[in-house]
C-alpha cells in the first residue's frame, strides 16, 4: 500500500483517478475537477495527514454524496448532467442504474453508511468483500446496508410507479 504525505505529490499521483471517480457520480467533468481540487486544497491545510488512494476514494465519495444530498447542489448538478459520463456497468444481471436523481432521492431515506455502500457496489463496482475492507466494516454489515438500500429503491419505485 502506497501512502503519500505531501498533498501536492498526492494530487499529481491520484488526482486524475479521483476526478474519474467523481465524474462517475456527478456526471460532469467540471464539477468533478472542482470537487477533487477542493479536497486537496483542504489537505494542504492538514499536512499531518498521510493519504493513499483508498482513503482519498472515500473522501471523494463522501464529498460527492454531500453535494448530491443538498437540494440546491443536486438541482445544479442535474442541470449540467452529461448522461454519457455514466459508466457502463460490468455487473451484468446484478447491475442497477444508480444516477444522480436516484442518489438524491435516496439521501432522504438512507444514512451515509448505506449510501456509501451503494456507491461502492454499483458505481465503483466493488465486491462486498472489497467494500468491507475498504470501509473497515464487517461483510455482514455491508450486506445489511445493501439490503436496506435495495429496500429503499423498491419503495421509491413503488411510489413513483417504477420511475425512480
Amino acid at each position, binding site marked *: 500500500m502506497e501512502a503519500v504525505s505531501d498533498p501536492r505529490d498526492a494530487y499529481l499521483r*491520484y488526482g486524475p483517478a479521483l476526478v*474519474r471517480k467523481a465524474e462517475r457520480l456527478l456526471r460532469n467533468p467540471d464539477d468533478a475537477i472542482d470537487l477533487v*481540487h477542493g479536497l486537496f486544497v483542504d489537505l494542504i491545510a492538514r499536512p499531518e495527514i498521510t493519504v493513499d*488512494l483508498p482513503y482519498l476514494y472515500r473522501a471523494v465519495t463522501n464529498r460527492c454524496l454531500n453535494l448530491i444530498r443538498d437540494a440546491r447542489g443536486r438541482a445544479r448538478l442535474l442541470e449540467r448532467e452529461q448522461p454519457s459520463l455514466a459508466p457502463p456497468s460490468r455487473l451484468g444481471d446484478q447491475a442497477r442504474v444508480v444516477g444522480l436523481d436516484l442518489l438524491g432521492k435516496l439521501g432522504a431515506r438512507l444514512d451515509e453508511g448505506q449510501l456509501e455502500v451503494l456507491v461502492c457496489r454499483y458505481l465503483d463496482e*466493488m465486491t462486498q468483500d472489497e467494500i468491507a475492507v475498504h470501509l473497515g466494516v464487517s461483510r455482514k454489515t455491508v450486506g445489511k446496508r445493501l439490503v436496506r438500500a435495495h429496500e429503499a429503491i423498491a419503495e421509491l419505485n413503488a411510489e413513483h410507479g417504477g420511475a425512480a
Partner: protein
Amino acid sequence: MSACIGQPLSWLTLERHVLAELEAAAAAATGEHLAACPACTAALGTIQADRRALPALPAALPVLPESSSGARTPFVLSEAAKRPRRRTYFAWAGGGLALAAAAVVVLIVRPPDRPRDGRELTASVRVKGAGVVTLTLVREREGAIAFDPPDVRDGDRWKVQLTCAPGGGAWVDVVVYQPGEPAAVALPAQRFGCGNGVVVAGAFRVTGGAATVCARLASDGRPPAAPPATPGAGMACARLSAAP
C-alpha cells in the same frame, strides 16, 4: 462495454493496478482476470486513455474568511465589498481665487480600473513562456452558467479559465478592480499549464456593482503580492457592468 466474465475488477483496483500499487498477489490475480475479461480490459483502457490536465493547486494556501459557524467558506470574497463605498473622485482645478469661487469641479476622467498608459483592456495578453493567453470568465448565477457574461450581481459565483497553446505555462493570480476601491486579489498566485479552458483554482464573488476582473500573468515566478492600482501590462481583463 459488456458484462464481466465474473466479478468485475473494481475501479479502485484498476486504478491501483495502473499505479502499480497492488500487492504482489492482488497484482497477479488482476493480471489473470484482465487477460480473460474483455469488459475489464476495456475499463482499464478508459483509464489509460484519460490524459486530462488538472488545474494547479494554489502556490500559497488561500486565506479564506471564517463563517459565523467557524467553518471555512468556499469563496474568497472581495475585501472591497466590506468597506463603505466612495462613488467618484473629485479634484479641484483653478488658477486663483476667482476661479476657485467659480468652483469648477472636474471629475477625474480616468477611473481606477483604466490603464494609465491609455491602452484598451483586452481579454488576451501575450506572456513569455505561454504565448497568447486568453481569459474567460465563468459566472454561476442561481444555478445557471454563463461564459463571458456582461454583468455582475451580488451573489454571483465566479471562476476564471485561461486558454493558451499546450506546452506553455505561467503564473497567474486574479485581481478585481472596482471604482473607488483598491485592487483586491480574488484568487491567489498559482502556476498553471497551458491548455484549452484551464481552470484557475478557486472561486470568488464580487459584490458592490461594476468591476473589472483581470488575470495577472507572470512568466518568471509568482506576481508581486500587491497588485498595481490599475490594470497594466501582462494582464488579461474583462469588464463587468452592474446587473440591473
